[in-house]
């Protein structure tokens, strides 16, 4: 109590001092033509709802002063362009370049550091620059988890998959550099194979409504976006380093990019990262065999002509992930014993080690993408993307075969290779009577090969053909949007039945459609409404999986008679501010008919004892949720953020609950910014408390064990931006699970075996040169 009082006193004492420098922030930068990177001279930038604003100079440079901290809406215009808006959270003086797609004059053209897009009425979340900087080097699933309304499903501490609106795996789509990421995403223990250092920005679009990105993503879309290639001559770069104390993780990434004066239209970027971590430490013991090794590299080559541009992107992801040895079990008796134990057996707790032994996963993912943009004379634009992806996944069991000759070969017990090709064409049409239209089509071919005797899923070939169209019209205060998409999927599975391959053929068509509206209630308040209908064809594992799920001691069987899922959803979002309080509240309601889920079928007797058996079945499901974020600006330096996430899911046919639905959670954060010299960027300190409630909405028959208790975690972070000569840097400290709390999380598939990671101090250094 005394501590809290003294903190309050400190805050009260500081606030008048801080108030003096309120409304003194500066925003400056350049307004640039997105298409040929030329400066847009005399473009104007002003605050919505006030006359405050400036014009850029002849080189497109602008400087806005006297800004109060908080969320601001800026209107950016250029001759011939309709005014457009960008929402920015400004807590410190900063430089920000805005890209305007000049050729696309009457369309929505402004976007901060990303490709141009029509405005979505679906709820979209992004990380701000500080959140991005504080999550550098984390796996993708853990980065996205920092977004409001996004959580994660994990297998141990190293494998993390994003969960959006309660959905994961087959029900969300990840677009990496504009290309649908294709790996073995059906698996709960298969994390997205993407180097998090490659991307400059992450966006999550909730719900299935964004038809241009794909069909059947009932949870939503994750967009992993790079920053634009440089256009100024010279070589620049960025170095990132991360060290974490808990598992002694070292993670480093280097990026170099440039443009040559002699060939200004050509730009390039090369990037690579290395990661090594050892055994994870829970508050009371180490988890044996939980190290990770990863090396990734990528390059981008770009060419921008007068009316066209081309970009080649290549990336390779290589990862070896140790699987906690204590999570390996032989049968249900072993699992029951593991659940009864309060901590893993001594043989599964060893001291610190970097060594990765069996069981482990070895994963390689490769992406090559060629993108062409053609700006049409009438104002339209064509965008063509051709890509190829390889995904090789090898899973090594804890024990090698008993036969010594076989054991010596060290062959993975489960091995899959996936090869997929995607060709996608988007056509943004010339505006007609104020209506903006985009049409597109995609061809996708995927071939999966099982290289091991264990064939949890079979070999298959999948062809998918999709077309979409969307239109948008913006009135004074109202924006309307409608979109429709049709996907036709042909699947040919070749499955081993009684030691013979048999072929099975499936064809599914799926419609995704979407209508939405946005309404600007006042300068400060906006409402978005989105209604969508989406169908999802069953995925390969739902149709044909067969076998034992390691780690959960359950037998899982696919069902080739599954019907496609049909979802109807409504999303409502309100965003705005009132005095010092700004807020964003999103609510969603989704009903899925023929929802595909694992239904318990009693026990099956095997030679290793009895196993609970699950079959993939159709049912009807209902998901309701609310994601709310409120920011209260206490002073120019002190900000309080509170976040609440609720999700209710149920099975309508059996009147029971669904499994693996994230529990409700809340997060409180206090952020303090301190500037000791006017010309410097502010030092940032924050304290965060997250509380995850116990998942009380569960059915005993469907769960392997009772969901764990709720837990609260404290974390603290500090960031120090600095300039040294021409170098710009940022030193960040992040202390997670500060009080070494012992807890287990319902969404972690290893919750039966071990406590979660204990205290971890992460030290980050980032240098731009």
């Amino acid at each position, binding site marked *: 109590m005394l501590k809290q009082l003294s903190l309050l006193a400190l805050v009260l004492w500081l606030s008048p001092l801080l108030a003096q420098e309120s409304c003194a922030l500066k925003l400056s930068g350049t307004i640039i033509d997105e298409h040929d990177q030329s400066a847009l001279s005399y473009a104007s930038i002003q605050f919505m709802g006030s006359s405050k604003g400036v014009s850029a100079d002849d080189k497109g440079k602008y400087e806005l002063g006297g800004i109060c901290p908080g969320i601001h809406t800026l209107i950016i215009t250029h001759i011939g362009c309709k005014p457009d808006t960008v929402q920015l959270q400004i807590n410190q003086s900063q430089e920000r370049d805005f890209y305007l797609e000049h050729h696309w004059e009457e369309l929505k053209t402004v976007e901060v550091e990303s490709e141009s897009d029509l405005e979505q009425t679906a709820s979209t979340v992004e990380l701000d620059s500080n959140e991005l900087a504080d999550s550098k080097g984390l796996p993708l699933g853990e980065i996205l988890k920092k977004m409001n309304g996004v959580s994660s499903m994990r297998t141990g501490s190293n494998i993390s998959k994003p969960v959006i609106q309660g959905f994961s795996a087959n029900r969300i789509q990840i677009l990496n550099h504009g290309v649908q990421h294709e790996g073995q995403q059906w698996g709960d223990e298969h994390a997205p194979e993407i180097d998090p250092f490659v991307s400059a920005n992450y966006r999550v679009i909730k719900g299935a409504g964004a038809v241009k990105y794909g069909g059947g993503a009932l949870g939503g879309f994750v967009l992993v976006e790079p920053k634009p290639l440089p256009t100024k001559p010279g070589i620049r770069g960025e170095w990132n380093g991360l060290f974490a104390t808990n598992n002694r993780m070292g993670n480093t990434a280097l990026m170099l990019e440039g443009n*040559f004066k002699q*060939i200004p239209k*050509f730009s*390039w970027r*090369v990037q690579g990262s290395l990661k090594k971590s050892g055994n994870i430490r829970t508050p009371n013991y180490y988890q044996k065999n939980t190290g990770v090794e990863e090396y990734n*590299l990528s*390059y981008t*080559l770009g060419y921008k002509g007068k009316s066209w541009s081309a970009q080649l992107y*290549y990336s*390779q992801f290589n990862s070896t992930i140790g699987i906690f040895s204590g999570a*390996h*079990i*032989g*049968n249900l*008796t*072993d699992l029951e014993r593991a659940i009864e134990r309060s901590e893993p057996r001594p*043989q599964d707790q060893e001291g610190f080690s970097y060594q990765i032994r069996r069981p482990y996963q070895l994963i*390689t993912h*490769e992406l*090559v993408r060629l993108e062409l943009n053609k700006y049409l004379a009438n104002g339209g634009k064509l965008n063509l993307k051709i890509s190829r992806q*390889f995904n*090789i996944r090898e899973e090594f069991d*804890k*024990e090698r*075969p*008993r*036969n*010594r000759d*076989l054991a010596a*070969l060290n*062959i*993975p*017990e489960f*091995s899959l*290779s996936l*090869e997929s090709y995607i060709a996608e064409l988007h056509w943004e049409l010339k505006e007609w009577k104020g209506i903006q239209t985009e049409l597109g089509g995609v061809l996708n071919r995927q071939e999966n*090969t*099982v*290289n*091991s*005797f*264990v064939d949890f899923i079979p*070999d298959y070939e999948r062809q998918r053909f999709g077309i979409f169209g969307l239109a948008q019209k913006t009135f004074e205060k109202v924006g309307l949007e409608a979109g429709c998409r049709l996907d036709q999927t042909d699947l040919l599975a*070749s499955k*081993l039945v*009684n*030691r013979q*391959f048999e*072929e099975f053929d499936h064809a599914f068509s799926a419609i995704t459609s979407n209508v939405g509206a946005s309404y600007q209630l006042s300068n400060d308040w906006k409402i978005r409404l989105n209604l969508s209908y989406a169908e999802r064809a069953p995925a390969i594992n739902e149709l044909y999986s*067969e*076998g*034992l799920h390691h780690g959960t001691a359950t*037998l899982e069987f696919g069902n080739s008679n599954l019907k496609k899922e049909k979802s109807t959803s409504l999303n409502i979002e309100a965003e705005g501010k009132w005095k010092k309080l700004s807020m964003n509240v999103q609510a969603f309601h989704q009903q899925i008919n023929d929802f595909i889920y694992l239904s318990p079928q009693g026990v*099956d*007797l*095997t*030679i*290793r*004892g009895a196993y609970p*058996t699950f079959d993939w079945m159709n049912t009807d499901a209902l998901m309701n949720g609310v994601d709310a974020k409120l920011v209260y600006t206490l002073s120019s330096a002190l900000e309080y953020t509170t976040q609440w996430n609720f999700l209710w899911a149920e099975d309508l046919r059996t009147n029971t609950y669904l499994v693996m639905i994230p529990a409700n959670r809340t997060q409180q954060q206090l952020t303090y910014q301190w500037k000791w010299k006017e010309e410097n960027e502010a030092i940032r300190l924050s304290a965060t408390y997250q509380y995850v409630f116990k998942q009380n909405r569960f059915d005993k028959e469907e769960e392997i064990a009772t969901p764990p208790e709720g837990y609260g975690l404290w974390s603290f972070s500090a960031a120090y931006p600095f300039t040294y000569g021409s170098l710009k840097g940022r030193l960040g400290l992040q202390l997670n699970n500060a009080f070494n709390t012992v807890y287990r999380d319902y969404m972690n598939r290893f919750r039966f075996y071990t406590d979660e990671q204990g205290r971890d101090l992460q030290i980050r250094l980032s240098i731009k040169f």
Partner: protein
Amino acid sequence: MKRFTRLALLFMLGATVFTACKDDDDDSVNNDNGGTTITPNEEELITTVAVIYSDTMGMAMDTFYFRDPDGDGGNSPEIDTLHLPANAVFDINLQFLDESDPNDVEDITAEIQMEDDEHFVCFEDQAGLAISIELRDSDGTYPVGLSSRWTSMGATQGQLKLSLKHQPGVKDGTCAPGDTDVEVDFPYVLN
């Protein structure tokens, strides 16, 4: 000229990475769809447990099976009832087989014997007192359990749980450590 050298270098770097990766993929085993070939990485299955009874003179013999040749799921396993003499002393030997391919039955017992320091067979009489079991083989330090001598009490019936534990590096002569490779329940009748 210099800039073109640089450029060329960059492209070459790209090309090497490209091909290296393609090769990688080609190396992986490809099984031909539609054919009947099974990849060299054949999994070691245990589908059958044979309990071989013999009297202490090695004269009378009988064999009882737990059989699940189609593996997990599919058809239910076939389980024999152990018909054993009451108030008698006799020997039991175990065999573990892979009968998933009827044309190529594999005996896994030899492999278990080769790694006897990593394996341990546990017997658990669910009723408790009807049979007492003495393990008669050894890996040098601890018993293994593939051969044992049983002493039965009066006429009764019950359930016997037989499990094969895989205990590499952690074997201590008890059933607790390691993972379970086999766990079957045999009904028995003593008369």
